């Protein structure tokens, strides 16, 4: 048993088969790891109460607390503690479940010594890292457990130090702006402002003057000189969100700024030097936009010196559980109450849910559940509702039209005080059509008539309202 160079990592190994436990323990000890070996999930939890290991390796099938439950318990307490699951069965469902629940690796017995040690070292390298503190300090707002995100953040962390333009791609709601902020915060520009603008939110002229500023009287309504965001971000970082939606004419202007780092406000003859790092983001495929001629190729290359891709939540489901806990804690902090938690089947639902809106959608779902659930443990009924609510939150066009039409008819009827002739005239329809319309929405015109002061309601004919005889055909 030579060559055991002592290592700092401390490992907790759990297996109810004493012989297998002894084997794994020996292999790890031979590598110089400090190892605690326990024969059950219960014992493992007891050990975890007093000492945090750097990695947990647990058998899947055990009497009492099994591997998956142990995994959940561990991550409830410490979402970033890596766990390797060892199973006697190469069952795909178990492996998938374990990965979804955030297992760092899933190994199947028989275990080979070399492969096992390599896996342990890999997981430790990923999670503990050579510069663990730096890794953990980078992007503290981004919850990560998945390998995919860890790798991306590693790259982003390195990029942060280099003063280069960065293009962040990724679906809506994946946290592109958070990443941009993190890069700024870890850069040499962190003391200067981080200024963000959504290029798809403003019409072309407004976007131009927002970005580059304008002189007084440069256009109608330009009452005063405006510096623009380039100036505001001077010395810092300008985050151009949804850059793919920037109109071509502005793309040309942006390209000029990136070429000589001078900004000319709208209506000005003078250009001002600016020192700004550009981070841009888009959910579009910019290369495709370039091919279609909707995005300038030269600008694309300027912006994407370093491309970073923010994975969708589908691609990093192991982050769902820690994200959900994080959002629950945030709600708890806002409401100054202890955080609620998800019942196992509710969490399972979240883990498997289709979340096209990514982290933002998950946040909405979690917050809704947390607010609506009367109990501290959120049951699956709430997750079901919140997850299924989403499509109906966005009605179909027909539903939206109908809803509008109904509200419109009500306001017309109200204004006409239930008089059909008046109401029809207001709506620009003849009486027959108007009757049909209100019939479709089961609106009763008599209900809109102003009541007399007397307690009795004089139900009257449509054409002769009880009050204000101001209308006749």
């Amino acid at each position: 048993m030579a060559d055991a160079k002592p290592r700092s990592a401390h490992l907790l190994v759990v297996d109810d088969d004493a012989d297998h436990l002894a084997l794994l323990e020996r292999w790890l000890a031979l590598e110089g790891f400090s190892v605690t070996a326990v024969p059950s999930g219960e014992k493992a939890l007891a050990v975890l109460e007093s000492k945090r290991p750097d990695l947990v390796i647990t058998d899947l099938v055990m009497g009492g607390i099994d591997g998956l439950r142990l995994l959940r318990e561990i991550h409830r307490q410490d979402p970033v503690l890596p766990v390797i699951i060892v199973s006697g069965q190469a069952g795909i469902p178990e492996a998938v479940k374990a990965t979804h629940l955030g297992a760092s690796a899933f190994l199947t017995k028989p275990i080979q010594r070399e492969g096992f040690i390599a896996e342990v070292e890999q997981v430790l390298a990923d999670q503990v890292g050579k510069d663990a503190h730096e890794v953990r300090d980078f992007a503290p707002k981004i919850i990560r457990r998945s390998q995919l995100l860890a790798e991306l953040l590693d790259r982003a962390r390195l990029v942060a130090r280099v003063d280069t333009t960065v293009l962040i791609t990724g679906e809506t709601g994946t946290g592109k702006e958070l990443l941009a902020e993190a890069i700024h915060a870890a850069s040499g520009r962190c003391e200067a402002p981080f200024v963000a603008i959504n290029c798809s939110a403003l019409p072309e002229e407004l976007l131009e003057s927002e970005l580059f500023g304008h002189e007084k009287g440069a256009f109608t309504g330009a009452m005063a000189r405006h510096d623009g965001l380039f100036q505001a971000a001077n010395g810092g970082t300008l985050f151009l969100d949804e850059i793919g939606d920037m109109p071509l004419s502005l793309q040309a202007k942006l390209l000029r700024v990136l070429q000589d780092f001078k900004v000319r406000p709208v209506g000005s003859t003078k250009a001002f030097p600016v020192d700004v790092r550009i981070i841009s983001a888009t959910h579009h495929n910019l290369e495709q936009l370039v091919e279609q001629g909707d995005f300038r190729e030269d600008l694309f290359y300027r912006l994407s010196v370093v491309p970073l891709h923010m994975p969708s939540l589908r691609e990093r489901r192991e982050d769902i559980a820690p994200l959900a806990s994080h959002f629950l804690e945030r709600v708890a902090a806002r409401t100054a109450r202890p955080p609620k938690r998800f019942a196992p089947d509710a969490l399972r639902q979240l883990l498997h849910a289709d979340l096209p809106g990514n982290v933002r959608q998950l946040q909405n779902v979690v917050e809704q559940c947390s607010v609506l659930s009367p109990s501290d443990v959120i049951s699956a009924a709430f997750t079901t509702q919140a997850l299924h609510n989403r499509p109906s939150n966005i009605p179909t066009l027909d539903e939206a039209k109908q809803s509008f039409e109904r509200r419109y008819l009500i306001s017309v009827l109200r204004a006409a005080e239930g008089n059909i002739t008046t109401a029809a005239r207001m709506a620009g329809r003849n009486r027959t059509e108007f009757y049909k319309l209100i019939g479709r929405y089961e609106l009763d015109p008599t209900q809109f008539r102003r009541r007399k002061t007397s307690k009795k309601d004089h139900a009257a004919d449509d054409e002769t309202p009880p009050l204000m005889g101001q209308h006749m055909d």
Partner: protein
Amino acid sequence: MTTQAVIPIDPDIIDLAEEFLRKRRESLPRLLRLTAEDDMGELRRMGHEIKGTAGSYGFQELSCAGAALEEAAAAEDAGRARDAVDRMAAFLQQVALVAR
């Protein structure tokens, strides 16, 4: 003297491997009793455990016998379960370890 099946083993774990085989030999009477009693649940569990652990130690033959026991017990086939236990017994009688 019986024919020996000599199995080369990682010298770092040879003591553990010997201990593992000793315990398996000790558990043979229990396995035979469980087969006689038709306790398929427990046989299945033990077969599964032997399959995995013997495999990790590098005892392929014993691992296969464990798998056979697990399968036979799952199928509630007492005859095949007994065959699997016999196969284990034969292996445990013959096996000798040598440092790799």
